[in-house]
């Protein structure tokens, strides 16, 4: 009898977990420090953008504003001077929208069809085509800047938004095509075969079979493109003219303007405004992204 009870005494049920182990302290400690490191500048920026100039001159950059003012935000958006114009960042914002939206749509539309054709149709020369495309991704784009200027000029698109949209679409093509090709290759091939036996052609398979299963990868591509194009500075400066400068270029012009006093609060507000769009995209589509994957659209 004694033997039997002794087997019942020992540990039972879930193993208790200690919270303050050395490992945990290390992991959470590191995470907290890193988060602080990244959040501190943001804190400073937000606080500074809500202060008036006199308060900024007092120095303490970490302190919250004594008196909250939205004046700098308004000024950054609609009054700050960039070069010749004094209508703030709003002009750049709308320029950026007019650049980003078509570029994202065009590049994703073309790249997804590219990727689908490369993954599923295996046409003659597909591998060569793909190699060239990927090779294109590794050519430093500095060497292409000037040739493209000439190309655009010859086409009469230099300095126009259309020209810039074209450039963005083309430069996004290699990486996006790779992304889509790999995704479509990972979908079960038998699905594609079944659709062919069912009499669906190139476009019908693309739109009715492939597209509905690919929401997650479209969201990924969209995040990549929106942030990439929105944050672009170089192409914006080179291929457009001052009236059509994207937001990033305008931001630079505001922050780096040499005339008058440095208005730190306006600069901070302008910077935050420019960063708002990518931030917004992360928050909104991050959820969509997770939902797309969680929906298990690929299984069946």
């Amino acid at each position: 009898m004694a033997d039997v009870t002794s087997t019942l005494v020992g540990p039972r049920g879930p193993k208790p977990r200690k919270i303050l182990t050395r490992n945990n302290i290390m992991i959470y400690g590191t995470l907290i420090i890193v988060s602080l490191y990244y959040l501190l500048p943001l804190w400073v920026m937000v606080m500074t953008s809500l202060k008036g100039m006199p308060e900024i001159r007092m120095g303490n950059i970490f302190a919250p504003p004594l008196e909250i003012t939205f004046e700098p935000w308004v000024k950054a958006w609609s009054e700050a001077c960039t070069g010749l114009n004094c209508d703030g960042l709003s002009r750049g914002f709308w320029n950026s929208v007019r650049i980003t939206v078509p570029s994202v749509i065009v590049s994703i539309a073309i790249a997804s069809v590219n990727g689908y054709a490369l993954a599923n149709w295996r046409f003659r020369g597909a591998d060569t085509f793909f190699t060239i495309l990927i090779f294109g991704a590794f050519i430093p784009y500095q060497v292409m800047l000037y040739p493209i200027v000439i190309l655009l000029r010859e086409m009469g698109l230099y300095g126009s938004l259309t020209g810039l949209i074209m450039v963005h679409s083309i430069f996004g093509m290699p990486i996006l095509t790779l992304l889509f090709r790999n995704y479509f290759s990972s979908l079960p091939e038998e699905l594609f075969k079944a659709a062919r036996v069912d009499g669906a052609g190139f476009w019908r398979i693309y739109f009715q079979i492939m597209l509905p299963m690919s929401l997650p990868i479209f969201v990924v591509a969209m995040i990549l493109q929106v942030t990439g194009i929105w944050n672009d500075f170089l192409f914006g400066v080179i291929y457009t003219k001052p009236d059509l400068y994207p937001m990033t270029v305008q931001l630079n012009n505001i922050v780096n303007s040499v005339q008058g006093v440095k208005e730190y609060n306006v600069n901070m507000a302008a910077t935050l405004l420019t960063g708002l769009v990518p931030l917004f995209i992360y928050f909104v589509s991050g959820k969509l992204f997770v939902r797309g994957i969680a929906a298990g659209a690929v299984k069946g």
Partner: protein
Amino acid sequence: MDPSISIKDLNLSFGAVEVINDLNLDVGQGEFLVLLGSSGCGKSTLLNCIAGLLDVSDGQIFIQGKNVTWEEPSKRGIGMVFQSYALYPQMTVEGNLSFGLKNAGFSKAEVAERVANAARILQIEPLLKRKPAALSGGQRQRVAIGRALVRDVDVFLFDEPLSNLDAKLRTDLRAEIKELHQTLHNTMIYVTHDQIEAMTLADRIAIMRGGQILQLDSPKEIYNRPNCKYVADFIGSPSMNFLDGAISLEADGTPTFTCGSGTFSLEGYVFDDAPAAGGAWLGIRPEHIASGEAAASRAIQLQSKVRLVEPLGSDTLVRVMVGEQSFWVRMDGRTDITEGDPLPIGFNPVRCNLFDTKTEIRL
């Protein structure tokens, strides 16, 4: 009558790798043909060629007398069922069934009627509004069969349709496929590497190896008279036992077989050609070996020692050693033999299969 499917000198290579080699095959109207072979022998590739999903490198394919070598898959009059079901995940069962019909431009009424009909035959009517993700494996495969069924095709192609299902379901669905074939009388080509499926379903079995068909015969013929050592070894589980030896002819012309365990008369064995002396493999299936007292009545008798006993319930598989040679013997399930026991075994030449040592072809 014209064959339903006729394949002439088919060749297919992926780059430098030849996967199908000068393959010829005729499948009769309403025949159930099973393609059987080890993994990588080109079964799926052959099926894909017939379906038009792969371009052939050379050769011709005829379906119902029409040359379809360059034809689109949907224009060949075939339906295909895949191992992974390949149902369109975003469509309901109804959408899956009607997709092909809509592509072919059938009227709404016609589509509805055909879908309802197929659903009735396959007993999936309650599932029509569900998405594939909400179906069990067996239900999914039924829908996949339905997708071929609605299109009212002459030829059904199955690529290992049951291998993702559990054993019980596989047996059920196997019977259903057989019934379906008896109702529809379509030509069916069925790829599998499950021998039991092949034996139970097939009118004829084609054993494939390295992109060629080694033997094309009824299941009975394949089992009893394999035409080469590979087929003999491939069919049957556990597989055939082989003795390495030589055939010689007595003065009176009686062939005998000599191996490490002795010399035996082969009287009763039906040779394909006149027997000739030379090296040979003697093959005997585990289920054709008598053991214990029963062995005494057999023409060929050997002494053996039990190595391993595997009770299966109905039968017991026993691995014995004949000298250095290991043998599988199938015994009654009630035997209480144990490791180390000596066991006399015996069999008759009529049950044997003899293969040339070099060419491995049946003698």
